[in-house]
């Protein structure tokens, strides 16, 4: 029984995550850069990139 509850919870968690995930066709939420390197001069938020094709990649150094 506990196992089933755990599986259900895991499935529910997956659903919750995928429901929130930003998907194709949606508008990419704007965000202000807290700091930036190598970005075009005067660009300090995502919306400054309108008119370009942008790859937003969430990455980590670890």
């Amino acid at each position: 029984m506990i196992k089933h509850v755990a599986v259900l919870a895991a499935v529910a968690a997956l659903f919750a995550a995928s429901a929130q995930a930003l998907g194709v066709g949606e508008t990419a939420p704007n965000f202000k850069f807290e700091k930036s390197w190598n970005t075009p001069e005067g660009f300090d938020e995502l919306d400054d990139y309108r008119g370009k094709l942008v790859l937003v990649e969430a990455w980590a150094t670890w």
Partner: protein
Amino acid sequence: MPHLKELNTKYRDRGFELVAVSAEKSDKVEPFVKDKAIEYGVVLYSNIAKDYGLKGWPSAWVVDPEGKVLWAGNFIDRVTDAEWEAWLEQVTPGKVGREVAKELKPAAKAFDAGEVGKAQKLAEEAAAAATDDLVKADADFIQGLVEKHRVAHQGKIDKAGSDAVAKAKALDEAAAKFKGSELGTKWETEAKELKKSKEYKDCSASADELEKVRGKLEDMKPSNARKALEKIAKKYPETPAGKEAAELAKKYEE
């Protein structure tokens, strides 16, 4: 991240921009950007995971010129060249992609061959000689395509800011694409003059010296590494590489 470097090199003159977002602290990210001499855009935003509903690292989104998501997933290296080409076509078209009046055929042919400057000149001439509205409309259409390329190159040139070496490189690339037009000549002249300037020579020499030292840093005693970096920083206080050397030297202070 070698694939990000590759994408940046391949598509940067076509209205493509990379925004690599980290939620880490600046002192974790900055050494990474500097030590690996990363050229693409790196930014910090601590709420990215929540705002974008992150499912693991790395996650990526391709965003079109209107801000809409075209692709979402974890492995951007799985996107094919054909997919990139189709997306880039919206930003900086490589082909005219439709029939045009016979007066515009030479311009369209030049454009399709990647000779954007030549296409611009031919379209201008055709527009000036045109009496027919349809011919004028086709000339406008081709000039519109040319304009997208101009904006992409101008953006690249502006982005280089005070980095004279990067700026000269962007000007060379822009001048080659716009060869045969007034703008191409203007960019070519700017590149030539920039390369003659002290600013450029210092920028180029300091970048070379820093590259040489960077390769040896790990095998050097920290005190020697610091001295080598400080020497560059002192000799070229105003160049990007000089400033970078000063920053790097701080890491070898203790």
